[in-house]
């Protein structure tokens, strides 16, 4: 098979992406119900946005879906390193490249080529992976602040770690909004994350 005929997103990435969407969705919605039990900000999430029905149900969902997210995340990280996906596609961009691509994106002049990642995409996708890892690490630190005491101390103690966990949730939600909005603008990217659509040819930028 020629290089240009390779799928924009390899099958393992597509599978792990959708398992991740389900796991993160469960974590997010049940997390909002848990947040509502003791809100640290002056607002609560409406009941229709939450999962679990009440605190115990939400916690059962949260520590159940946790394993799915953990397994999916580990599999994705290992795949990303071994396959070269991270090195090839998600290399951290330079600030200048982000500035240039962001400027073009805001003027709707940034072409979207399936299977190739511009600087803004590298920043967003690389960033959300780091944020997800921080969400998992802070989550573990507030789940087991005695058994994982050094991790909790690293995040500044239980109340601060809980605040960081909540902040990471906010950043993931913000990423999801931008991500879904961009997919709505370029619907063929949704097709390529489901079916084995060939990557676009690389064009010089």
């Amino acid at each position, binding site marked *: 098979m020629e290089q240009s005929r390779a799928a924009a997103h390899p099958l393992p990435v597509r599978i792990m992406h959708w398992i991740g969407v389900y796991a993160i969705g469960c974590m997010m*919605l049940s997390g909002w119900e848990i947040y509502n039990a003791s809100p640290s900000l002056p607002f609560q999430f409406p009941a229709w946005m*939450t999962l679990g029905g009440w605190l*115990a*149900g939400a916690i059962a969902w949260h520590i159940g879906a946790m394993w799915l997210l953990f397994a999916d995340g580990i599999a994705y990280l290992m795949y990303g390193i071994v396959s070269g996906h991270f090195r090839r596609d998600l290399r951290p961009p330079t600030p200048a490249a982000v500035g240039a691509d962001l400027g073009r994106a805001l003027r709707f002049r940034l072409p979207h080529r399936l299977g190739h990642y511009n600087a803004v995409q590298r920043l967003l996708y690389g960033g959300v992976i780091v944020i997800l890892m921080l969400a998992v690490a802070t989550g573990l630190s507030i789940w087991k*602040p*005695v058994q994982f005491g050094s991790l909790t101390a690293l995040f500044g103690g239980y109340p601060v770690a809980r605040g960081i966990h909540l902040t990471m949730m906010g950043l993931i939600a913000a990423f999801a909004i931008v991500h879904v909005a961009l997919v709505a603008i370029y619907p063929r990217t949704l097709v390529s994350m489901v079916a084995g659509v060939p990557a676009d040819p690389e064009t010089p930028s």
Partner: protein
Amino acid sequence: MIRKPVVSAADIAPDLNRLRRRGLLRGGLSLGGLALLTGCDLSTHSGVDAALWAMLRFNDRVQAALFNPSRMAETYPVSAVTTPFRFNAYYPEWQVRSVDAVDWRLDVAGLVADKTPWTVDRLRTLPQEGQITRHICIEGWSQIGQWSGVPLAAFLRRAGADLRARYVAFTCFDDYSTSIDMASALHPQTILALDFGQQPLTPEWGAPLRLRIPVKLGFKSAKNVRSIEVTNTFTGGYWENQGYDWFSGV
């Protein structure tokens, strides 16, 4: 002739709450419901709820494996103690029940050699340990408090308990109950607290005797204890039987 009611309001409160929750859930669609095609909150008999209960049991086993008996909860200076301390129970503060400490006895049951009930005075003759630790609620909030009393391990040894038994169960005179694993019961920071903030416990903080177990979430630290049973039979607890995570280690 007036007869004492066979069933009190407190007896059916958990069931009423459960029914109310189910009604609430059935009443409206939720994002969760839409995404998962079912409203699963541990109270239905659906397959998803069965899976959630199975995951809870699995998580209990993982938590027991993660539990390191020599790892201590962080301790704090007196200056870090939270004031005012937040009251928390399954009922509001005006419903706190109290007993006369002179009449009160702690019953000991199950796999123990000496089942003699304990008075407060006799408990005070045992070695006492103090601690200033963080009480972490399952709701997410936390506060630092100071307690002292008899290490549960010392008490169990004194009563000739079978330390190979699986559970230590607590029954309270406010109709609360909980149970913990033996490994956590024997942790050096697990105490039968008689004092809170260097003063004898008052009713709202669990007088005359409460469990204080900083290696578990706050609701495991049962207040107003009436009896302790050492057993191999899983007895769950007030919240645990409704779906709160039983092990609840931190």
